[in-house]
């Protein structure tokens, strides 16, 4: 049976609440189900002490969750939009991420910050951003960005069980995506990428919703006779360079795709690492697909014009291979 991304997140949270009495959900409207209904029914089932509504106070609730994590709880904090994580940055960057290190290993912060990101449906400039690169830049944080419901299920469980602070980024475009869940699925370890589609001509590295675009692009490329391998990074910190290296050794051509702006994006870091560590494997320079350097616009036509997608990946892959791009509708 298939479930949406939202339903599967709810199931993972439900199971973790039942499995571990130290897991607590915290956030704006979470007891009522949250802005997207992810936590619907969980307060009724597990009690409003375990699934707790907070005031709209991102700085304080992130601090609350961090302080509680230092004292035996495993909070799962929801920041409704990653755009609002800006209000929690002091705590996340200066406290949450550094507590383990600054205390010389005395303390740890077993905290998951679930947040929702990306552009879809005219959410406009302050509810559509992809800000993951900021967090990737902070030692002490783990950054997870699942690409599908089944992936989110396992990764959320792994994140809750990890014992280190995790930023768990859910793309709003994926929320209605449906997928079946294997009965015996073991949560994947944090830090291991997966090959979402095997191929031999070009490696497309992606994460979050962009994996869907990459798979679509691979399908189009296959019809044009190009075999693209799609790597779903799953986690941005840590970055699975071994998986990337293995793929590049097969294809010798790399394209990195993300929805965030290219400038200073995660793709820049990956490209630099490939350029340094795998230079001899490359037959062509690494290519990046990402948003141009502009805020996300409101009007649907403008939003479509700005956002990168499968068509951009196809075009970039063909360029990388010295081929003419196939006609796309």
């Amino acid at each position, binding site marked *: 049976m298939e479930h949406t991304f939202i339903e599967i997140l709810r199931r993972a949270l439900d199971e973790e609440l039942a499995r571990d009495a130290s897991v*607590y959900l915290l956030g704006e409207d979470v007891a009522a189900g949250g802005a997207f209904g992810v936590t619907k029914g969980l307060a009724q089932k597990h009690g409003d*002490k375990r699934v707790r509504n*907070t*005031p709209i*106070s991102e*700085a*304080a*609730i*992130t*601090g*609350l*969750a*961090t*302080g*509680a*994590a*230092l*004292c*035996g*709880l495993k909070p799962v904090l929801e920041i409704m939009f990653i755009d609002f994580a800006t209000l929690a940055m*002091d*705590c996340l960057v*200066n*406290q949450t991420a550094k*507590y*383990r*290190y*600054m*205390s*010389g*290993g*005395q*303390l*740890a912060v*077993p905290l998951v910050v679930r947040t929702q990101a990306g552009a879809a449906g005219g959410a406009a400039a302050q509810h559509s951003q992809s800000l993951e690169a900021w967090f990737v830049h902070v*030692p*002490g944080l*783990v950054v997870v960005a699942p690409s599908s419901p089944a992936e989110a299920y396992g990764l959320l469980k792994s994140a809750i069980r*990890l*014992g*280190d602070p995790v930023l768990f980024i859910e793309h709003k475009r994926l929320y209605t995506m449906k997928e079946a869940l294997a009965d015996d699925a073991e949560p994947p370890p*944090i*830090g291991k990428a997966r090959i979402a589609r095997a191929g031999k001509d070009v490696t497309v590295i992606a994460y979050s919703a962009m994996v869907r675009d990459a798979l679509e692009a691979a399908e189009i490329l296959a019809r044009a006779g190009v075999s693209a391998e799609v790597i779903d990074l799953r986690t941005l*910190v*840590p*970055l699975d*360079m071994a998986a990337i290296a293995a793929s590049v050794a097969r294809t010798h051509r790399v394209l990195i795709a993300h929805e965030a702006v290219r400038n200073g994006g995660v793709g820049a870091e990956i490209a630099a690492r490939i350029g340094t560590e795998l230079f001899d494997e490359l037959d062509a320079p690494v290519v990046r697909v990402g948003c141009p350097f502009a805020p996300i616009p409101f009007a649907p036509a403008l939003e479509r014009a700005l956002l990168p997608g499968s068509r951009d990946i196809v075009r970039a892959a063909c360029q990388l291979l010295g081929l003419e791009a196939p006609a796309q509708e």
Partner: protein
Amino acid sequence: MYHALWRIRLFEAQVQRLAATGEVPGFPHLSTGQEAVAVGVCAHLTRDDVLFTSHRGHGHVLAKGSDLKATLAEILGREDGLCRGRGGSMHLVDAANGVLGATGVVAGNLALAAGAAWAAQAQGKQNISVVFFGDGATGAGAFHETLNVAALWRLPVLFVCENNGYAEFTSREEHSNVTHVSSFAAPYTMAAKTIDGNDLPTVFAAAREAIEILRNGAGPYLLECMTFRMAGHYVGDAQQYRSKEELAAIRDKCPIERLKRHLMERGVKQDELDTIGERAKQEVQQAVEAARAAPRPDATRVLEDVYRSPSLNAIPG
């Protein structure tokens, strides 16, 4: 408690001296003149109670019972320090003693203290959480957000404001129309009081009353202690923004001098007090020698403890 005041005073005098000679890295902040707040409040705390403090936190950590040598070794950046030299003066943590941390960000850990109180409440534990901060922190949004949620959830957290009249280099009059920090509590329906923070018996009594309220589950409390920073904002601050008259009043306000007068009026002899002071001096001196002899951290281990999960510590940068 006279002894505890002297321990802090002399400890910080040593920090100041060692900073001047370049042995203390960074820029330590001294609480000289504010010791009565630390001692009067911490006298009521158990080891299970948790404490958070600010950048001006040496006194709180010592008053909570942390080891003199380990605390100084941390300030000197040594392997035997509380945080193995990873934290320093502004990030003292002594988890086993309930010191969950100082912060270098003004108002940075008020919410963490509330979170620790939430954890205690959620787990049905009896311990409370205390956070010390300066009046400068009231300018930060996190202060107001935290007061609101702490009152709303009736969290067992004691907010102790050390109102020394200065936010770094700027006097309170210049950064707020609100004279008393305690007046922020009322809108959130939080209990609060403003007291003379340089009079140890006053602090002791007020803290006992506040902590009793917390232990009875009757919600958070904001205790504003009017105090006096005898030192500058940081070691080396020439304090040109303070008048001669203000600085001249120091001796009158000194919490140690005041407690001494208080005790002598009640029949305690000068030589008894001198003996106590001498004992503190020797303890601090021993700690200084031990801390200075402590090994420096092994630079090859600089990448340890970024994460708890061992596999994550191998992340190449």
